[in-house]
């Protein structure tokens, strides 16, 4: 399932209808719980598009509570709850400042869709993984041997790198290979996915 979650809307429904800024830890924790509640309803395998378009300000504390703690729950090997992939959308330069800082702190990475529709990796990721991720982005979907040929590396190397990227939920794993985490299928922009919050469509 693909689900769009309007973070600003979660803020207004879980904390206060008067707020438009994501500031303070208690606010961030409440919003994260609201997002988790929505994720609980969308099944064991899903792509969640977290839409920050209507968030004015995101401070470090809120970025840590929402982004870092959410990712930590879904990319940690020890406590994977479900196979949930996150695509971050509508992030401004200042949002990215705060998010990049907390990603560095926790050695996390995420995929964000920029305003031009192109995906971008943020956070801590080594050059090798970044290269494989870029290859996957260009291919769209591929098995390890195709990635190996494109990237000019061995099949084993490609398999290991793709496995790492999948474990970090930076690529989607399917039965026959991997799919780039580049937003909704068929080039649909994340903001066009749904007119209402918490909408869903088939993931694959």
């Amino acid at each position, binding site marked *: 399932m693909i689900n769009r979650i309007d973070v600003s809307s979660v803020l207004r429904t879980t904390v206060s209808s008067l707020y*438009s800024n994501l500031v303070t830890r208690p606010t961030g924790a409440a919003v994260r719980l609201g997002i988790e509640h929505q994720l609980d309803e969308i099944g064991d395998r899903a792509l969640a598009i977290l839409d920050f378009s209507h968030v*004015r*300000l995101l401070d470090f504390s809120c970025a840590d509570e929402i982004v870092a703690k959410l990712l930590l729950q879904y990319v940690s090997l020890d406590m994977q709850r479900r196979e949930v992939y996150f695509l971050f959308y509508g992030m401004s330069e200042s949002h990215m*400042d705060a998010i990049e*800082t907390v990603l560095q702190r926790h050695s996390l990475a995420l995929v964000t869709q920029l305003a031009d529709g192109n995906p971008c990796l943020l956070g801590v990721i080594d050059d090798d993984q970044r290269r494989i991720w870029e290859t996957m982005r260009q291919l769209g979907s591929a098995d390890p041997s195709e990635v190996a040929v494109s990237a000019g590396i061995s099949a084993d190397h490609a398999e290991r790198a793709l496995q790492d990227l999948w474990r970090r939920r930076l690529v989607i794993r399917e039965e026959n290979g991997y799919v780039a985490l580049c937003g909704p299928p068929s080039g649909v922009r994340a903001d066009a996915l749904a007119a209402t919050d918490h909408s869903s469509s088939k993931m694959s």
Partner: protein
Amino acid sequence: MTKVIEVPFSLDDQSFEQIFEALAPLPPDEKILIDARRTRWASPYGLTALLTLAQTRLQKPTLAIPELDDTATYWARTQFFHFAADLYEINGKIPRARSTEDLDVLLPLTPVAKTEDIHGVVDKIQNKAQAMLIGTLHLEPSATMRFTMALSEICQNVIEHAGRGGWVAVHSYRWQKRLGRRVVVIAVCDAGIGFRQSLESAHGPRATDRWDDGMALEETVMRGASRYRDPGRGQGLAGVRKFIHDWTGKFSVRSGTARIAIVPEWDSDVPMREDLPFFPGAQVQITVPERIVP
């Protein structure tokens, strides 16, 4: 007998040390008179620190307000007397508070005691900060959000670590004496437990010969230590440091008997002062200067 403490002619973070010095040896139940009659100007630090000073006294202190009408009126416009009236016995006629719309008061004195207060502060300041930072200080447009993030993080420190509420104020003025340029100044002061005691509340005193307020400030402000074991903590002040560096701004934190500062080239302050007169809590100041447009 009442002890009289004279407020300097010009009251800012530096000259406020004279008040701390006069206050430190006094028992908390001794009656004091804060004499501001000859004071002509006060920075947001001066005003917020005056309010927190009163919180530390067991016997309500007296405040003699500035004699100069312009000064007293300005203090009224910043909402100083609105809060001081509860904390001090006021000596002198308080001018009627008028709107701050025509002033360079980006944020009048505002209490910070709970999470909702920070949402209020952030909501209030955004539009005015944008006009001031971009229009007057010639900073890049993204500075507004970063400035507000810094403000939010500093205010959260009060709620999470002080153990009691404090005050925040943001003013803009021309800093002729030291810089010859316009500045925006954020001041956040509280009279809570301070940085050292906050760290000790979780980890106990450090096993080192030199565990004091200065070291606690180094640990928290420079190295991101926190009383919480959550590894995500301590990022707020690190983020503030980064922005201050980008803007060639100044950032100082006084707590207990020490004061740490990130000092830009344009200022002659020292990075660390120790053995200062004790004052509880934390007193934070951020100064962002006008950018010189080539």
